[in-house]
């Protein structure tokens, strides 16, 4: 039982990381209609900057802050120099250009940091375990990530539905021409949204640093999961992507933990491991297929 709860929390933590990544992706896709494959690169850059600053200063939180600032600046530069030219173009151009950015970022990271993975220690202040339901210990750091994810979800809701920026953004995403004719500077709004998405992505990368290895290409594998999340959640929907991210995180984690054991109960140990393992790795795609059959637009069609 305690193992199950631990796995469930691991799933939640993965889900929250995915949500941070997917929320920026879904905003940019939903509002600007831009497919940004290089979103995962900012996740990677976030992790690298966090690792470097943390290892130099010994302060993880300083590392995270540095990563967020870097991502914001990079986001503004990328939006103004590259993305702005892509909004009116076909998705294929967007895919090509942002794929080019992935290669650019991977090589840049290789030049700056080398090919060896970096590692970050869990910050001292969160390096303890918490008793879950009176038994066993669960790392406080992972719980902190889960809590932070929920806080960010709430903040995003307030921002989108109750702030002036959110309102102008919703106006712009719904009727771009008219918003401009009313005097709203859509370009600046788009730059802001893109940079904001970049910051969330870098935050996800920085937070993932102490849990996974910081290495070149770490953004691509997680980007695929993030795309699955926004498709399940309904493109452009923050609420949908939160639910979908938790679903994906939990299904993926529990699948990997339990499916091999489950198949071993009625198969030979080696066959069970193979079948269960393969099934676990496609579990989220099966989930996506089932959800899209029932709800082709994804879980939620609203922001």
């Amino acid at each position, binding site marked *: 039982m305690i193992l199950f709860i631990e796995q469930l929390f691991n799933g939640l933590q993965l889900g929250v990381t995915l949500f941070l990544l997917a929320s920026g992706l879904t905003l940019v896709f939903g509002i600007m209609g831009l497919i940004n494959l290089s979103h995962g690169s900012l996740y990677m850059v976030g992790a690298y900057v966090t690792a470097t600053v943390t290892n130099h200063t010994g302060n993880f939180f300083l590392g995270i802050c540095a990563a967020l600032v870097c991502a914001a600046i990079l986001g503004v530069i990328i939006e103004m120099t590259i993305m702005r030219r892509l909004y009116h173009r076909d998705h294929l151009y967007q895919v090509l250009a942002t794929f080019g950015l992935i290669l650019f970022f991977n090589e840049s990271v290789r030049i700056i940091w080398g090919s060896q993975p970096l590692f970050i220690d869990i910050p001292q202040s969160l390096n303890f375990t918490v008793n879950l339901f009176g038994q066993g210990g669960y790392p406080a750091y992972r719980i902190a990530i889960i809590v932070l994810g929920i806080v960010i979800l709430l903040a995003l809701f307030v921002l989108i539905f109750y702030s*002036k920026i959110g309102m102008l953004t*919703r106006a712009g995403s*719904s009727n771009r021409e008219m918003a401009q*004719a009313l005097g*709203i500077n859509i370009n600046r709004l788009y730059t802001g949204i893109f940079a904001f998405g970049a910051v969330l992505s870098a935050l996800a990368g920085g937070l993932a640093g102490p849990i996974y290895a910081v290495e070149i290409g770490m953004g691509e594998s997680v980007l695929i999961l993030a795309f699955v999340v926004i498709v399940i959640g309904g493109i452009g929907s923050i609420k949908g992507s939160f639910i979908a991210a938790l679903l994906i995180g939990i299904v993926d984690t529990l699948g990997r933990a339990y499916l091999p054991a489950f198949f071993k109960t009625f198969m030979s140990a080696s066959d069970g491991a193979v079948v269960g393992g393969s099934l676990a790795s496609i579990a989220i795609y099966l989930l996506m297929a089932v959800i899209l059959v029932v709800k082709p637009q994804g879980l939620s069609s609203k922001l």
Partner: protein
Amino acid sequence: MTKLLTAVNLKKSFGGLNAVDDFSIELGKGEIHALIGPNGAGKSTAINLLTGELLADQGSITLEGQDLSGLSTWQRAQAGLGRTYQITSVINELSVLENMLIALLAQTQQDQIGLTHVTKITPLIDQAKHYLQDFDLLPNAENLAGELSHGEQGRLEIAMCLATNPKVLLLDEPMSGMSLIDGKNMIALLHNIKQSMAILLVEHDMEAVFQLADTVSVMASGKIIASDSPQIIRKDPLVIEAYLGGDDASG
């Protein structure tokens, strides 16, 4: 009459086709200037050139002496150029009240930080409701704009445009698709607001045009072929041949 908007020799061609050629117009305060002409004459293109949604190949646009030529659409809107669309344009996914709030917020974006909690700005909400009251939309305040009738959407669009305090109003076929009653209300409305601004009215409803306009310009094949008072335009043989004649013959 004070001239507000002056456009001189605007030109726009798409490929080899001159959509708008040598287009010059002056709009004065308190004046309704109607722009008529057959479909494809370039009327909507001309409006888009004025608002900056299309960039003119040549020519200049000034608003109260300020050169607008190099400004983008939102900057021209901030300078005082308001417009409505041929296809009624409101933000369907938001409530009627939110639509009004956005129009009011659009004007304040320079001097207020974006994180202001909108529902806390009661003066703004009062102002929005005031506009809705004036345009007989207050009972629909909480409904989605997309659920309004065509006439109501047209009123909301004009209300939003007026909320941005335009000096010059460019109306692209505001009566199209409206019922007789809605059309009559629109005529009364334009009469009421014209004192405080200059209005360029593109319209196919000739009855409305001759009822409202102080000046009528006629466009054909991208050019203004005549521009004068409604009484004279009515009798201009060139105009009758290019436009009015065809209409009369068909009914």
